[in-house]
């Protein structure tokens, strides 16, 4: 199936790249979405089965794939609106559509890959497609953003590759040469700790660029800022999840070796620093998109803290990353409408959104509540579990510091969002504000509702899948 999917998707990409006709484009996009969902259902039907030797439909992949498919529908729909609203030259359009489809395909394949090298290849492809999307606006700043993104991603991909090389060295001692995760886990006892240590260090550092974690967090920020908001929705949700997959799958391997504790320490340090960094900038930043991006960094920090703490933290981490994907993408999608109203993304020149687009304002409000993990948002549950895992791991000081930082973040986030919602902006004439139909906010409402529902009342299926995906970890 995956073969069909990849071939189909790539041919669609090529098609989109060359076709200028609108109807045909939409036809192809629709086709692709169908394909995407077929893959999703297929992977659900034969869960835990391997395909083309390099892809496995395991539970983690499936969970993220569903998230992906749901978000991708909304993202493509809003990309359409976006391009209608700000008409671009036809070739730019087709590049946009081609690369967004390529991005989605690469990410999906990356989820499913069961071989570290394959994951790595698809990560590389995401860099390519993402850079094309970031450069959509063809202006100086966009170029700068693209350049930085490409360069840092290239470096980090190289890091990952170095990591893989070290891993192979580590594996040689075990007398095996198969770099698939399952094999790694089975041989985990025999891996050479020295090489494994280096491997983990490099692979982790490499994937932080995608995950948006300290140390390589900067690239993602600029990308999400410069990319069109619908793409930002993808970059800040599912692409981050790809980074998570990359790290998590390998972490499972390390967790079964004596290095477990050390790895936890490494992850914990990076994660806490990420939360710290996001706090620093949540106070400062005045650009709404960048603010959202930094909140994404904060959440990734939380997720990795959950992983580092272990225990119930693993469960919480996976739940959190799924819910966060929904919430953050909905916020980014809402931003497109916000931008259409004010034609500006600086908090200073934006305000009283409640008056111009009530539905959208409600999305922002709910999104804010969800993103800051206040009850009744689903993220509250996962954060609660993460705190609990930290408590269980006897990391009270970390927990206290974390809570302080989170409080500051809520304060800064709340201040800005409420300014956007209620306070009228200075010298802004609302004479030619476009009327925005509330239906455009529907998708965001659905995503947020999903986040709340899955958090507060997770179906037994979901719980099972999450439990299964952390099954290999030492509890």
């Amino acid at each position: 199936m995956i073969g069909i999917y990849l071939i189909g998707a790539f041919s669609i990409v090529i098609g989109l790249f060359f076709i200028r006709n609108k109807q045909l484009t939409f036809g192809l996009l629709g086709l692709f979405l169908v394909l995407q969902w077929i893959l999703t259902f297929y992977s659900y039907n034969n869960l835990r089965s391997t395909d083309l030797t390099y892809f496995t439909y395991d539970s983690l992949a499936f969970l993220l794939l569903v998230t992906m498919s749901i978000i991708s529908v909304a993202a493509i729909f809003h990309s359409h609106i976006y391009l209608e609203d700000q008409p671009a030259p036809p070739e730019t359009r087709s590049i946009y559509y081609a690369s967004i489809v390529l991005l989605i395909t690469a990410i999906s394949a990356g989820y499913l890959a069961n071989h570290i090298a394959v994951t790595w290849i698809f990560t590389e492809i995401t860099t390519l497609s993402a850079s094309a999307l970031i450069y959509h606006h063809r202006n100086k700043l966009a170029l700068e953003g693209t350049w930085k993104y490409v360069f840092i991603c290239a470096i980090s991909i190289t890091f990952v590759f170095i990591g893989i090389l070290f891993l192979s060295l580590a594996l040689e001692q075990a007398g095996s040469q198969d770099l698939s995760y399952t094999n790694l886990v089975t041989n985990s006892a025999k891996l050479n700790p020295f090489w494994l240590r280096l491997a983990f260090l490099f692979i982790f550092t490499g994937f932080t660029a995608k995950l948006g974690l300290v140390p390589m967090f900067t690239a993602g920020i600029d990308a999400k800022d410069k990319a069109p908001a619908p793409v930002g929705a993808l970059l800040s949700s599912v692409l981050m999840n790809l980074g998570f997959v990359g790290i998590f799958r390998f972490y499972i391997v390390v967790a079964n070796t004596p290095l477990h504790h050390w790895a936890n320490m490494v992850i914990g340090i990076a994660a806490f620093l990420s939360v710290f960094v996001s706090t620093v900038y949540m106070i400062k930043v005045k650009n709404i998109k960048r603010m959202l991006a930094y909140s994404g960094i904060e959440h990734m920090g939380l997720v990795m803290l959950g992983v580092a703490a272990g225990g119930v933290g693993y469960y919480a981490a996976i739940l959190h990353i799924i819910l966060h994907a929904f919430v953050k993408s909905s916020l980014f999608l809402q931003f497109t409408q916000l931008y259409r109203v004010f034609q500006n993304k600086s908090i200073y020149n934006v305000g009283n959104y409640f008056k111009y687009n009530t539905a959208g304002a409600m999305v922002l409000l709910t999104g804010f509540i969800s993103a800051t993990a206040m009850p009744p948002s689903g993220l509250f549950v996962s954060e609660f579990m993460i705190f609990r895992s930290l408590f269980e791991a006897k990391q009270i000081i970390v927990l206290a510091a974390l809570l302080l930082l989170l409080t500051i973040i809520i304060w800064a986030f709340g201040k800005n969002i409420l300014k956007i919602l209620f306070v009228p902006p200075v010298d802004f004439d609302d004479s030619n504000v476009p009327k925005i139909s509330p239906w455009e906010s529907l998708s965001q409402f659905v995503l947020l509702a999903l986040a709340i529902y899955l958090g507060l009342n997770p179906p037994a299926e979901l719980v099972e899948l999450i439990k299964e995906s952390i099954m290999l970890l030492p509890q």
Partner: protein
Amino acid sequence: MSNISAYLLMPLLAVVAIPFMKEKAKAIVTYLELLLVAGLSSAIAISAIVGGAEEYVFGGSAVTGPIRLQIDALSAWFILIINIVFITGGFYGIFYLKAYREQQKQISLHCIAFIVLHLSLVSLCVIQNSLVFLITWELMALSAFIAVIFEGDKMSTLKAGINYLIQSHVSILFLMLGFIWVAVKTGSFDFASITEYSQSNPTSVGLFLFICFFIGFAFKAGFIPFHTWLPHAHPAAPTHISGIMSGVLIKIGIYGIMRMLVLIKTDYTSIGYFILIISAISGLYGVMLAIIQHNVKKLLAYHSIENIGIIGMGIGIGCIGLGNGNQLVAWLGFSGALLHTLNHALFKSLLFYTVGIVYQATHTLNIEHLGGLIKKMPHTTLLFLIAAVAICGIPPLNGFVSEFLIYSSLYQWVQNATLVPLIVIIFSTLALVLIGGLALFCFTKAFGTIFLGEPRKKFVHGIHEAPAIQRIPLYFIALLIVGIGIFPQGFFGVVSHATSVLTGNRVGEFAPIQGSIADTLQYIGLASTGFIVLIVLMFLLRKLVTKNRVTTSSVTWGCGYVSPTPKLQYTASSYVRSYSKLFGHLLLIGQKEKPVSGIFPEHAALKTHPYDRLEKSLIDRPIRGIKSFLGKFVFLNNGKLQFSILYGIIFIISLIMIPLVYGLILDFFEFIKQL
């Protein structure tokens, strides 16, 4: 069971429906919804008081586990208070919001928030599952926040709102810590596990657990030093919301503390002293700051802190009584606290509502601009007067009854107390007396300046009394206030059930104590009634005597000065001057003065800005510190590509090197050891 699901379902329907309605419909639906929920919950509550505790269990979800709802007399008492305040406040609010008719979107948001607020408050009293409790708690905080920022287009309002939001979030963090603690140890979210845990561990554990919870709830209740959000949030909110916040929102904190007292089994005596001391300080501090306020709502907000202090003193004494096994003291203390909770809810909401009427008539909250309103709005004046007398704890009104109970708990405690407790007692008495006196000082000032004398500022627009229908709930509250004043034993009868939950004795066991207290209260009721009768008689006598006496009217005697102007009146500031000179060191009053100078002085001015010393040192300074600390790190993302790469290198190298270096150091020390 079914009625509970209905009770949850109806509001949700309303919440969904409201945004698509006409303004009138919105108001009506909201209020009907309110009445429905209130009616349902009150019915259950009353049955719980009469027929003992009831319990329901919901399935809950995979996350929460089974959700236990339990309604005992304590919950019931608070539910009743909540419903009273909400029914009156909602009714009043309908008319209050008429002035904002054009902002439909805000109003529908407001209505939703209002329903959710009421629902969550009522639910909080019955939920026995910590995770669900937390969620409901935050729902309550959020809806209150939405309700507060109704006039969110003002940046000041928004600031106050966010301040409130953050502080209530901090409170939830403390609660969360406590609950996580218990959940980690016992693996259950049910409140019962708290009891198990505290019983199966040394009292010190229970003590810390309680303090953790206490801080969490104290933020909501507004104990010193967790009070700083109150004086900002109350003036910012629309008046009916301020009334409700001050009336019941902060009381839910009190409920939480009481619930924890019931749940956590530990050394009550030390808890008692802890609460008693904090409360005494809160009471004094609150009223001392209240006196120097110019903004009426701020003044009332500080008085809420004071009254929370009084309630807290009751709780503290009750705990100590419980710890010493002195049932009578425990009873007096707890009943006093519970009754004062109701009383404060009544007169404080009434005060806020009357102030709201004044505000809508004059569009100002600054005392110094008001005056002589009694001629324009007699009803409002009367209502405010009643509430003011009540809040000073003066007979024949309700305030006296609860304060009397707390006083007498102190005097009962005296009988068999050793040295240290005696000193505590005497100073708490001192505090209580001073609180009473200062409250009187404050409210004579407020009433005198707002309603009496001549207007200190000419208002261009006419000032009118509120419509009669808007005054109905206010008169209802006033009626209750007087009713409790002259018929306290009846209300005590109801309270005693809740008290028995706290003192932990079964129904029927407490008949003798209850009886003795009830007798005393009966005397008070009679005395108050007699007092009122006496006043009326005296007044009639006066009428009779002065019937055919000549009464002329002239200007106020200006001690020889013949052309008095309203400017010459004694202002609020001058009224409190001697006070603020005495306590100037404790308070923080910023002054801008342009003194009178020269032979022919021109313009002279004196501006004073009262500020909260605790807020300055506990909130403002630390926040500034943290911000500047975080500000030092903004270079991190300075847009230079090299740096971004550098972080990666540093990260990897340090993680490789530090362990090696550390190992080397260890080896070195090993080597030293071997020498």
